[in-house]
């Protein structure tokens, strides 16, 4: 398994999170160094108490769709057998979250095929229906 800098396969990072106020958030937002990314995240449970976070992206990443699975250990991440409805692994560098945050629409479209975008479009329509029904 290749990991680390290549960011392929299992991505492992340490993170520290703090809650901040709306005012502080808005001030910090004026100092951003990336695009603002807007997405809808749908959390669905799968096997072994794991959860999939399905993200639907908007704006210049319109039509992009990803599914992230978080694991309690690297061992479990390496041994994970994905459900059939999940496709190829796309955590690699070209489409990493950081790279995505700097792409304009043209750059994004050069990385993702029209075929995938068309397929995503159908899935996103179904997801939006599911979201509506969940409220």
């Amino acid at each position, binding site marked *: 398994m290749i*990991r*680390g*800098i290549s960011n392929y*396969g*299992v*991505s*492992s*990072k*340490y*993170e*520290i*999170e703090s*809650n*901040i*106020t*709306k005012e*502080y*958030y808005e001030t*910090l*937002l004026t*100092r951003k*160094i*990336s*695009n*603002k*990314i*807007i997405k*809808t*995240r*749908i*959390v*669905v449970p799968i096997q072994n108490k794991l*959860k999939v976070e399905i*993200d639907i992206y908007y704006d210049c990443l319109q039509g992009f*769709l*990803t*599914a*992230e*699975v*978080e694991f*309690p250990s*690297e061992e479990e*991440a390496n041994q994970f057998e*994905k*459900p*059939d*409805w*999940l*496709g190829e692994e*796309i955590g690699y560098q070209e489409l990493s979250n*950081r790279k995505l*945050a700097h792409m304009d629409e043209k750059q994004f479209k050069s990385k993702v095929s029209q075929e*995938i975008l068309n*397929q995503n479009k159908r899935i996103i329509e*179904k*997801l939006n229906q*599911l*979201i509506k029904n*969940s*409220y």
Partner: protein
Amino acid sequence: MNKEIERKYAVKYLPKDLKVEKVEEIEQAYLYEDVNTNIRIRKIQIKEAIHYIYTVKTKGDTRN
């Protein structure tokens, strides 16, 4: 400090029995990034509740 271990996939199709547990509207941007570290701010809306979060992420052990 939490360790975030994840894998990211495309979605081929949706299974019939998909159960939506939670829906989040997310807006986010980066404030800083270098090879090992990034700082991200995020606004998360779940139904009526809105949270604002500041996150520092650093690479784990990459020697393997």
